[in-house]
């Protein structure tokens, strides 16, 4: 389903009402809308849904419809309403899956051997990653590679390496995680761009 098709449920009135609830500055409200949409998609993804973006759009459409009907978000916690609607949408997904005898637990998930089945990363992806790593500043490249270095024994955790890294940098582990993640996000975007060309 295309983004346009998914967005068909969002009427101009609903969209205006949504933006108005998200803030007086329409541009800022638009940015917040994008953040909420992205986060909702990730929440659905983390719940194991196969079409997280569609479900995020469905959630936003429903919220927008209710707002156009006069419902108001609590200004101190506007996200609660989105969350409530998202849970309803998620439960519908579960019920639908059950009705279709495709319960989440036995759905068309990758098999448990998928980690191993795909084996080595495809050459093209690896080449793209190499290029993208080459575009990073040296300290960032060093950071992300050291963070992902594993021990010889596949059963061993590399937590000790990461703790050492955090100590060297003088930051807590969670700060290190976030720092690495920001670099990884740039890489992810760069690799996607590279693969699409």
């Amino acid at each position, binding site marked *: 389903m295309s983004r346009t098709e998914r967005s068909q449920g969002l009427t101009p009135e609903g969209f205006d009402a949504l933006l108005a609830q998200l803030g007086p500055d329409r541009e800022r409200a638009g940015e917040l809308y994008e953040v909420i949409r992205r986060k909702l998609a990730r929440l659905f993804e983390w719940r194991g849904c196969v079409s997280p973006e569609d479900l995020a759009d469905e959630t936003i459409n429903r919220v927008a419809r209710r707002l156009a009907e006069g419902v108001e978000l609590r200004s101190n916690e506007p996200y*609660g309403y989105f969350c409530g609607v998202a849970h309803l949408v998620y439960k519908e997904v579960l019920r639908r899956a059950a009705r279709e005898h495709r319960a989440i637990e036995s759905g068309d998930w*990758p098999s448990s051997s998928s980690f191993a089945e795909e084996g080595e990363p495809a050459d093209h992806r690896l080449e793209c990653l190499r290029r993208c790593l080459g575009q990073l*500043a*040296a300290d960032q490249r060093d950071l992300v590679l*050291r963070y992902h270095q594993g021990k010889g024994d596949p059963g061993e955790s590399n937590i000790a390496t990461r703790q050492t890294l955090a100590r060297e940098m003088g930051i807590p582990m969670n700060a290190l*995680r976030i720092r690495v993640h*920001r670099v990884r996000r740039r890489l992810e975007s760069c690799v996607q761009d590279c693969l699409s060309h």
Partner: protein
Amino acid sequence: MKPNPIDDELLRGYLLGTLAEEEADRLERRLLAEDELFELSEAVEADLLAAGARGQLAPAERERVLRRLASSPQGRERLALARALNAAADAADATEGRSAPVLPFLRPVARPAVRWTAMAAMAAGLLLAAGLSWYAVERPHGGESAALAVRELPAPAGPRMAPRNLTPGAPAAPQPLKAPLKAPLKAPLKAIIQLSLTTLRGAEATQRLRVPAGAATVELQIALEGMEDLKSFRVVVRNPARETLLDERGLEPRTLAGVPTLVVDLPADRLTAGRYEIQAQGAAPGGEPEDLSPLDVEVVRGSEG
């Protein structure tokens, strides 16, 4: 609200689907409201995918990671990236050693003749204009990089541009030379260092930048070939401690020897030896700023290296 130290365990449980539904609901409300917690959750997710790809998770956890985090096309992409990063990190580890600077995957790129032609013209123009007694050319490591060229030119004493937008506490102006130079130049010296930016795709490896002993000011001349459409630039220079040494916006290129060039001054005494990062953004009139490749330079002082 900032994530607290126990949040990563909570997030791990959430991502693996082991939290009670009520607790997961509460956490999801926080995830929507708290950007930093959300970011941490994405980071923990990536860790789980990487650990799963390495076989570092218990079988039940691996199963959960696959079902919950790698079920969507986006999740499978993230898993593929995690696997590729693991492979790249291992390759770097094997070839470089853990303590060595990691510079893997240099892409051999043919030197574009036009760049060198233009740079040579620019250098020649500068030599003529400044009447310089010497210049040195640092070749990129291994000769594989075409993204950046560094030349060092001591300039004669003359009106110096004051460093701009330096961080608080920085010396207000370059210090005068404390000792005479071997060469019969009248202090203070300005070292002219030429760099060239490319667009993001062309970024290459660390380059060495030698600050001549006794230089008071370093003038960075950053050539902008092929970026004639960009008219306004921001340049940020970060020192080895990742502190911002210079952050200058609204820079407009000058034309030096026919090449559009950004010119920024730095006090030489603040360029201690070590690795520096130069980041730049350029914007066309009415356009959004475009990230240019960060330049990674290693500053070497005097006769070092």
